[in-house]
């Protein structure tokens, strides 16, 4: 049974926290501030004792799957294990208590870490310079697109188009649109890679860039990446890398080495920082020499007096957010990279690739594999053939819940019908993978023998399958019926 809403638990007069004995009210209040500035409508925040407050959120947490309790092969999202020590270290009061406008001398520890993290990312990617501000991958995309826009504006070239593969993540076209570019979709070919013909056809002097994902969202490395890069560069455009899948090739190849001019990282994916139920993330941008002067303000610089925030970068596109980025995420990524170090970063990717291929091989006998090739860190199955039995990818996902697994990403990438996108990550053991395989096989059997069991799943969760259509048709977003 679900937990009631916190508002439904509220009772006038309860309190979970007291700050002071004295209240600023009435005349005393109006002596400080004129009445017209004051709130009229009383607040209706929930009133609970601290024990009930704690029980509420504790119980809610228990109605939630996380990596710490469940295998979570949510493709494209890299739900790997998040090292605990990094949580503890990032929470040190020396870091968490800093004000962003403090004197430079009092923030050297943090600036050092920011500077060094940028350097590590530069070496990992081969990019010339990295800016850490963007708050997530999509934010990094927008930053990059605005940088390229500025670049061509300075060069006085009119370029108003962005090429995006049909397999790309939705943020790619969305960011392009936000940067006021026209989105041109490039097709995938029958082996799941970019169709070079279509690319050649669509690439033009009006195109700012191709936004590529490597490995792409099918989990496939673009084998013709050098040709892709040639085509793009030949037209004076940039090769932009959506770095969400960096987990696949750390220390094996570097974006700069296969022609990338500019890219974003997803620290919360590749570098193992918690996803926090949807964020915060961090989406640093790395750029080539040519583009790096356009990186957003400020960057961390270093001179004889120590580290400083460099605002003096005239070509910069300007600020992309207030202050300097999602610092805790950055610090955790730093800790992670240092813990792996030179020797072992590559092993992360090797193991991620091993795990994905192992799952793929074991599952392809039971589920359709649209592109039967060696995959990188993830792969995509299709449930298209299960439709005969009235079962869809969604049903399989729900049934997995009953068996104790978070489901893969479904219905993405769009180019695979009834897609199930599986990313095991390198932190999962063979035993866990094997138990997932068993579950998937069981479901495949159930689809044959008792499809309604799958169709009506989940059966063992706090709620049954939720009516998403109703949610959209009769939208209710708050406990208070203020919306009408």
């Amino acid at each position, binding site marked *: 049974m679900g937990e009631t809403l916190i508002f439904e638990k509220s009772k006038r007069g309860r309190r979970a926290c007291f700050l002071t004995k004295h209240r600023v009210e009435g005349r005393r209040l109006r002596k400080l501030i004129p009445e017209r500035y004051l709130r009229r409508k009383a607040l209706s925040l929930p009133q609970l004792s601290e024990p009930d407050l704690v029980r509420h959120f504790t119980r809610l947490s228990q109605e939630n799957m996380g990596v710490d309790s469940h295998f979570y092969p949510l493709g494209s999202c890299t739900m790997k294990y998040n090292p605990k020590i990094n949580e503890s270290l990032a929470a040190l009061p020396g870091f968490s208590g800093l004000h962003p406008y403090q004197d430079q001398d009092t923030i050297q520890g943090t600036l050092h870490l920011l500077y060094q993290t940028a350097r590590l990312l530069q070496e990992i990617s081969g990019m010339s310079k990295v800016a850490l501000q963007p708050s997530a991958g999509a934010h990094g995309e927008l930053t990059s697109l605005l940088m390229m826009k500025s670049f061509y504006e300075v060069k006085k070239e009119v370029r108003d188009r962005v090429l995006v593969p049909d397999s790309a993540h939705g943020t790619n076209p969305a960011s392009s649109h936000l940067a006021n570019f026209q989105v041109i979709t490039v097709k995938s070919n029958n082996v799941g890679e970019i169709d070079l013909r279509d690319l050649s056809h669509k690439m033009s002097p009006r195109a700012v860039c191709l936004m590529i994902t490597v490995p792409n969202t099918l989990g496939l490395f673009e084998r013709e990446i050098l040709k892709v890069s040639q085509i793009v560069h030949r037209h004076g455009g940039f090769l932009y890398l959506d770095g969400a899948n960096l987990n696949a090739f750390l220390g094996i190849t570097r974006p700069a080495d296969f022609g990338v001019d500019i890219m974003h990282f997803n620290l919360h994916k590749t570098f193992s920082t918690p996803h926090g139920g949807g964020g915060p993330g961090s989406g640093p941008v790395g750029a080539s020499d040519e583009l790096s002067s356009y990186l957003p303000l400020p960057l961390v610089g270093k001179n004889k007096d120590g580290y400083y925030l460099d605002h003096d970068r005239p070509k910069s596109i300007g600020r992309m957010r207030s*202050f300097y980025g999602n610092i805790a995420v950055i610090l955790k990524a730093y800790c992670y990279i240092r813990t792996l170090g030179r*020797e072992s970063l590559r092993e992360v990717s090797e193991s991620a690739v091993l795990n994905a291929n192992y799952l793929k091989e074991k599952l392809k006998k039971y589920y359709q594999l649209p592109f039967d090739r060696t995959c990188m860190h993830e792969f995509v199955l299709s449930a298209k053939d299960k439709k005969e039995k009235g079962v869809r990818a969604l049903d399989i996902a729900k049934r997995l819940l009953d068996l104790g697994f978070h489901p893969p990403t479904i219905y993405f990438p769009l180019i695979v019908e009834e897609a199930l996108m599986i990313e095991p990550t390198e932190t999962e053991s063979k035993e866990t993978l094997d138990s997932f395989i068993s579950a998937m096989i069981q479901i495949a059997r159930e689809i044959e023998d008792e499809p309604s069991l799958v169709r009506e799943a989940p059966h063992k969760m706090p709620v049954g399958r939720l009516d998403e259509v109703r949610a959209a048709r009769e939208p209710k977003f708050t406990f208070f019926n203020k919306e009408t």
Partner: protein
Amino acid sequence: MAIPYIPHTREDRREMLKEIGVKSVEELLEPIPQKVRLTRYLDIPPQISEIELAHLMRKLSQENAGTDEYTCFLGGGAYDHFVPGVVDHLASRSEFYTSYTPYQPEASQGILQVFYEYQSLICNLFQMEVSNASLYDGATALAEAIVMAHGITQRKKVLVARTVHPEFREVITTYTKAIGMHLIEIGYKDGVTDLQELEDNIDDETSCVVIQSPNFLGYMEDVRELEKITHRFGSLYVVCVDPVSLGLITPPGEFNADIAVAEGQALGNPIYFGGECLGIFTTKREFLRKMPGRLIGETSDKQGRRGFVLTLQTREQHIRRERATSNICTNQALNTLRAAIYLSCLSEEGLREVAGLCLENSHYLMERVKKIPGFSLPFSSSFFKEFVVKCPRPPKEINKILLENEIIGGLDLGRFYPELNNSLLFCTTERRTKKEIDELIVILEDVKWARP
């Protein structure tokens, strides 16, 4: 040293490779062209152990000196408000922080309900009709608001008060330049937006008017007068507020704001060098489908049990792609969770207490500082927890002296407002005590003669 985060033994690897039918992982990397392969180690430092890492990070954290050690009078958009102990404890439940966007609602009722509660709390606090489940920070929320206003009005001109946070103004400049919007800044008078200047600039080309109240300088804008002017021209009224102030101060819904945004850090998040932000974004129901960001809605299962789901996803990038209302995907969910716990923990009375203490502290400091010879108050408008002080010496020097006394002084305004280059913006949250303020005053009284 092997890696604590990778479970594979040699045996595991061998078995798995065998099942795959290859001899080595190397074979699996075959799709990566040889030409682009790295043939050396990355040039990064060697692996360190947890014990070494912990030592290093502790040392670096000690090279900082922040609000945990010093008394802080610095505000300007990031605040050291008190965070009740329960917030840390509950937000560090790993079922919350090691999950991701709740695409599978049946496995995510916990976090979905938290978001729903968050939306409800924010709607109530702001008196607005809808709230999304967070954007990156206050600045990007403001930028998204302007983009959204553009989408609604199809107008290109934006009037932005100069009393809006300078960094927020920089961000909206970056965001809106791309879509060819035209930003005009409206100056201030006595610390608040110059109504006449606004009237002079507004017209029916104006997409929206953007203000902040309490504004960056701490003063209360005349939000009702501004509303009248704005709506007279069919422009949208975009307002940025301090959520903590709403414990006492008029919420944007009460003065007919069309879009109200805020930086939510102060609601239960550590100050963290400005790095634990959360963009609060609210609007009217009529603009629902133009809104950026994730929305959680109530629904039910077949048995009629209530549940929560991501809804109106057709606005979002993963469905609508280039026609989405925004590109946001990963947001600031964990900070949202903290805000929800914070507001539920404080409740209405607690928030009133926080706001009341801020107000009292700032006015006590103001009364004391204005009596110190050499210091003066350039503006006489009403303020909340921040206000401007004109100083007898360069602010930089004063702050240096304060720092030697383990006080983090006010914000040197010259950085953002050249005309206020001899002024400090002082901030007092509820955490400041009378004793701390008195200690500040004692030093300021001597500051004229002190060595820098």
